[in-house]
């Protein structure tokens, strides 16, 4: 039932994050993980670099709130959210969402729920430095749509 949140400039190691979710944890048979990475293109503009801005203080609060709601909705064990900020390159990992649970459906649903709400509630903004210039990434209508299933 523990929640762990990190907002950090440095990268994260999926193996280390997984180990943190599992160590000494024999009650939870299921772990679901989602990792988001920088793609090399977004809506046809080739992306050379990304800059992730955030709202320090609010970011952590929103992530804890999302994780807390997931824990109220499903029977979960450990939950871990990591989000990077600052400059990122194509292929770099941006976000880690991990949830342990006694049963797989809870872990999988909670993982999908948390990334869906993170995408629309957590105060992060992506700026793309591409071949065709610099631009702020537009919010996707599909991200709002995705919330309807919860």
């Amino acid at each position: 039932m523990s929640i762990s949140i990190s907002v950090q400039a440095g990268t994260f190691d999926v193996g280390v994050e997984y180990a943190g979710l599992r160590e000494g944890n024999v009650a939870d048979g299921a772990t679901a993980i989602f990792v988001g990475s920088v793609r090399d293109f977004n809506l046809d503009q080739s992306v050379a670099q990304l800059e992730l801005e955030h709202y320090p203080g609010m970011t952590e609060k929103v992530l804890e709130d999302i994780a807390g709601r997931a824990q109220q909705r499903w029977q979960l064990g450990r939950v871990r959210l990591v989000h990077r900020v600052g400059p990122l390159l194509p292929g770099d990992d941006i976000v880690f969402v991990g949830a342990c649970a006694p049963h797989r459906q809870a872990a999988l649903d909670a993982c999908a729920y948390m990334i869906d709400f993170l995408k629309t509630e957590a105060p992060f903004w992506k700026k793309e430095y591409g071949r065709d210039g610099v631009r702020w990434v537009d919010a996707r209508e599909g991200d709002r749509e995705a919330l309807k299933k919860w």
Partner: protein
Amino acid sequence: MIRVLFFAGLREQLGCADVSVPAGSGTTLAGLRAQLGERDATWQRALADENVQMALNRQMAKSDSIVRDGDEVAFFPPVTGG
């Protein structure tokens, strides 16, 4: 005083990351937003954008939320993390 923060594209449009404004009595977020929009045409246009979202004391908030002395308010475009 009320501290007002701006983020991402909105911050760049305004050329301003934060301002402090005196706390009026009974001001709502909508009222504060309208008041800030009176600064000039750029602020007017930027803050009139209906996509602009608001946070009050680091929580997403609606236009009719009451803003009090010492509060932290933020305006920003729709979020694009993850």
